[in-house]
């Protein structure tokens, strides 16, 4: 916490400066509100509209959490499966890439037609967004584990399973967190996009409604919330990383984000 206060002021300063510049330029350049509202206008709308808004937020946060947890679990699981079973890896690696290239515009109707309007299709969308960076990062992490240690373990009679859990998995943890950071960032936007699959609540719904009734200020309120959620989420992953990876030498620890 102390270190957060010590370091936190810098990004906050940058963000404050940015908002200030934005505020000033909307005033000086006389940018109309419907085009780009000023931060004060956005904050004002956020406060007055809070009662409408809070319901949407809880619904989206729920989606994010469920989606991210399922997505990263699947990402981890897929990476482990592909790593441990080389045949699987060779056979399915391309399919994983394919999965990242089916645009939502196509997937959306199919998902809704197959799974209806409930949670399921939305979670599938977030999962698709989340699992990929984790799988790729983990697979690369597993591959780069220390050869000498691996040899030591093999000689001592370690099963593949032991080598995996005692060597490759702990070694790949930093890579996993690298992937989790990317995924956590995407999961928020993924949730918002998934709400365009047909939802009655959520930030995504609020945003499209605002956009179609030309309420640019509300659109930006939604963005502010999305951004704050993402930062929070990213921060949680960072804290988890610091908590779990304790063994790093001090000098390096201090340079952690």
């Amino acid at each position: 916490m102390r270190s957060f206060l010590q370091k936190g002021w810098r990004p906050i300063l940058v963000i404050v400066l940015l908002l200030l510049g934005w505020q000033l330029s909307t005033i000086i350049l006389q940018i109309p509100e419907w085009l780009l509202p000023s931060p004060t206008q956005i904050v004002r709308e956020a406060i007055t509209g809070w009662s409408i808004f809070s319901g949407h937020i809880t619904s989206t946060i729920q989606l994010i959490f469920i989606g991210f947890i399922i997505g990263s679990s699947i990402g981890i699981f897929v990476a482990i499966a592909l790593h441990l079973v080389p045949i699987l890896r060779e056979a399915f690696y391309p399919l994983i890439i394919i999965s990242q290239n089916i645009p939502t515009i196509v997937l959306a109707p199919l998902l809704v037609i197959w799974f209806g309007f409930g949670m399921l299709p939305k979670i599938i969308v977030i999962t698709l967004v989340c699992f990929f960076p984790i799988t790729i990062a983990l697979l690369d992490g597993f591959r780069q584990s220390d050869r000498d240690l691996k040899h030591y373990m093999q000689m001592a009679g370690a099963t593949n399973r032991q080598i995996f859990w005692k060597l490759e998995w702990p070694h790949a943890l930093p890579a996993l967190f690298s992937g989790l950071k990317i995924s956590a960032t995407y999961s928020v936007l993924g949730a918002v996009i998934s709400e365009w699959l047909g939802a009655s609540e959520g930030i995504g719904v609020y945003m499209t409604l605002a956009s179609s009734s030309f309420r640019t200020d509300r659109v930006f309120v939604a963005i502010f919330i999305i951004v704050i959620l993402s930062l929070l989420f990213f921060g949680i992953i960072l804290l988890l990383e610091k908590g779990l990876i304790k063994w790093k030498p001090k000098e390096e620890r201090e340079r952690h984000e």
Partner: protein
Amino acid sequence: GNNEANEEATEGTEQQDLEEITLVLDWTPNTNHTGLYVARDKGYFEEEGLDVEIIMPGEAGADQLVASGQADFGVSYQEGITMARIQGVPIVSIAAVIQHNTSAFASLADSNITAPKDFEGKSYGGWGSPIEEAVLDSMMQQEDANVDEVEIVNIGDTDFFAAMEQGIDFAWIYYGWTGVEAELRNEPINTVYLTDYSEKLDYYTPVLSTNEKMIEEKPETIKKFVSAVSKGYQLAIDNPEEAADILIEAVPDLDAELVRASQEWLAPKYQDDAPRWGEQKLEVWENYSNWLYENDLLEAELDAEKAFTNEFLPN
């Protein structure tokens, strides 16, 4: 307060008997949909024994959902249903929400575009469909102007006002929403209505749709649904302020001012010159599909009689 009482009344007694129905909108809720929300929140659906859930389709696209049976009813366009039926999508129009095409080519007042001939030398912002060029062409031909003189720019999802900022001179809008918004902003715009220049372009937009299987298997349900919806739109026609308030309450995220103004403008347009709300004419369907076919925009001729039906409208 009125609808609350209704809900309480039904909760205890009739609920088990209600038939669950799904309705998908075309995009976000707007004044085109007022009658649907009125019918739901005034309890008209419940009176008919229906429990209707209204869903926004997002990117999923309403027509496929209706055709596949994921949704029982949907909001669509004549254009979409025509295209869909040519591709074998079993979707049918069951009521016209607005009698005449209220879409127009709009421009900021200072660019002085008041008739199709003024399009010449200007830039049009569209979404890249070949239909747009054909429509422009047939309107400009009336005034001996040449569509080749128009610079057609694809502006994707960009909204009207943003496009106008970026050097686009005119774009295709629904007056009842975007035009009303311009009024509210005190942004004077000129409009060139399609209907003023070509009979054939006076197609129905939007319409209510269902799939062929429903028509075959549950005609009674459709009848109940349409009759409730019809009552809803009737209220919107007779009492636009109350209707607007119902929509605002149902979808509080909409801009209340825009909804009220839009509702006011739209109220007389729902039924317009038709004998009853929802009525569709065969010639409108034939005209438009023939026009599309003649312009090579359709791969085959439409069997217009199968594309719509008036049989479920209340008498």
